[in-house]
């Protein structure tokens, strides 16, 4: 067809677009110029294999592939690329366009599981399959791509399966770096909070250490007597062990808070998170004559999350409340912590104080970065809280507490909601 010939004329020094099955006039030029890399694939051989499997009674290809993983390799051999556009040639860094033709195996060199999932989608009769994958180019680079496959259905040209790829390496890179920065910032905030608590932590550790020393000295004095009370000594030594364990627990808690670690999500009981967070601030609150009222709901559904990060949020809110209460007379300093269920799908906790509250004009700004009314305050605590809560699929809100004071409420999805961490 003369029209097709004209459209196939090469343009300057660009790689020669490979001839695609030109079903319609002008389609060839259109597809070759598509800004998205595109492969024209003939998957009929795979279709025939699947028909045979169905005839043999196979209904679950996933199961079948567990027994016969070599079938994936076979499919990658018999399914062939019959055309590719300019974008595909460029993405693959091919020296010559012809290198892209032939078995599709090279597309799944790194992402073998992708190849398997494409087969499953094909077998199941899906129209499209999309997933994130990795591609090795012909010049040795690895790219992250969004891998899109569109299958033909009966009535269409069954020899044309389309594969497209969108290179999103740069975006994924940027997202990974952003997550790292957020983790670093979160870590810095935890260290800052811990630094403020140094005196309280030192005091807390001193208690079990004092008990250990005293019990040891008492034991030695008993042993020095002509008639040592061995039963008493045994009791004292047991208490030494118990106190040492208590000290170790305190240290572990501090190390957890200080540690820079990859977040690990697990099923959590929010009540436990609150209790552990309270351990951090208990001494400080006693020093400041702050009365702590704790109402933990029974039968609270569990949530899914990172224990240390959620602890960080609770500690941050408690520290903020404690600092706000410095302005109040000693007998009016109260912090109220509660956990609750919210509907069928959420659990939450609230930290309320009897402090001066947050002025209405500040309510909107407090979650923005670098807002602080404290002298020397960095003002990133609430921002990080918000980012941690959002990463857990939850929300944090601030309210005016009845009777003045501020109330921070955090709602989190309960574990029954299927939620996959990023």
């Amino acid at each position, binding site marked *: 067809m003369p029209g097709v010939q004209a459209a196939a004329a090469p343009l300057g020094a660009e790689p020669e677009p490979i001839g695609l099955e030109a079903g319609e006039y002008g389609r060839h030029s259109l597809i070759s110029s598509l800004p998205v890399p595109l492969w024209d694939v003939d998957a009929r051989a795979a279709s025939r294999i699947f028909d045979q499997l169905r005839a043999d009674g196979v209904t679950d290809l996933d199961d079948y592939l567990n027994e016969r993983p070599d079938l994936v390799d076979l499919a990658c051999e018999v399914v062939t690329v019959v055309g590719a556009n300019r974008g595909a040639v460029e993405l693959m860094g091919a020296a010559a366009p012809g290198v892209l033709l032939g078995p599709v195996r090279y597309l799944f060199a790194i992402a073998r599981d992708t190849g398997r999932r494409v087969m499953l989608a094909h077998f199941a009769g899906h129209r499209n399959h999309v997933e994130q994958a990795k591609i090795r180019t012909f010049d040795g680079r690895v790219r992250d791509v969004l891998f899109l496959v569109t299958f033909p259905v009966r009535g269409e040209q069954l020899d044309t399966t389309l594969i497209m790829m969108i290179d999103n390496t740069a975006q994924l890179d940027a997202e990974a770096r952003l997550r790292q920065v957020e983790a670093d910032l979160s870590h810095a905030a935890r260290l800052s909070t811990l630094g403020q608590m140094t*005196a309280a932590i030192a*005091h807390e550790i*001193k*208690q*079990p*250490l*004092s*008990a*250990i*020393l*005293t*019990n040891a*000295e*008492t034991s030695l*004095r*008993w042993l020095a*007597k002509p008639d040592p009370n061995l039963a*008493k000594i045994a009791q*004292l030594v047991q*208490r030494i062990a*118990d*106190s040492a364990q*208590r000290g170790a627990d305190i240290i572990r808690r501090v190390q957890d808070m200080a540690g820079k670690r990859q977040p690990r999500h697990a099923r959590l009981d929010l009540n436990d998170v609150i209790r552990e967070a309270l351990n951090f601030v208990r001494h400080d609150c*006693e*020093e400041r004559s702050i009365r702590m009222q704790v109402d933990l709901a029974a039968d609270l559904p569990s949530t899914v999350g990172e224990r240390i990060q959620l602890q960080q949020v609770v500690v941050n809110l408690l520290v903020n409340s404690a600092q706000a209460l410095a302005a109040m007379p000693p007998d009016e300093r109260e912090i109220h912590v509660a956990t609750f269920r919210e509907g069928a799908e959420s659990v939450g906790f609230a930290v309320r104080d009897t402090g001066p509250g947050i002025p209405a004009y500040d309510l909107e700004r407090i979650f923005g970065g670098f807002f602080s009314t404290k002298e020397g305050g960095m003002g990133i605590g609430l921002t990080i809280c918000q980012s941690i809560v959002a990463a857990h699929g939850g929300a944090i809100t601030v309210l005016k507490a009845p009777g003045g004071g501020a109330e921070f409420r955090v709602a989190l999805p309960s574990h029954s909601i299927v939620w996959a961490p990023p």
Partner: protein
Amino acid sequence: MPSVPLIAIVEDDAALRDALADLIEVLGFAARAFDSSESFLAVHVPGLFNCLITDFNLLGESGVQLRRRLQVLDPSLPVIIMSGQADPLACAWALRDGAAAYLAKPVNAQVLLQRLNSALGRASRA
């Protein structure tokens, strides 16, 4: 035969409270321990105890405030104050206030024994 001096201990940390009670006993005294100033005051009558050992920071009432109340209720009762904070200023105030001794935690048994003997000796002379 002189009776064994009865030492009252006020300390809110349970492990430390038990440890001190056992130490006081192996040192040759009798001990009775309380978890707060309130529970101590509920039991206290003048002359019942020969010495009081109390933590500086207590739930409800600071050790120094307790000391002041006792000055009215039982002025001859010697009071030894223990503190987890290394605070020389608090120490000076406590001693000026009439405390028999101010000891830093962790408490050294030998030092405690010396202070106890001194406090009990002073009381028996008073």
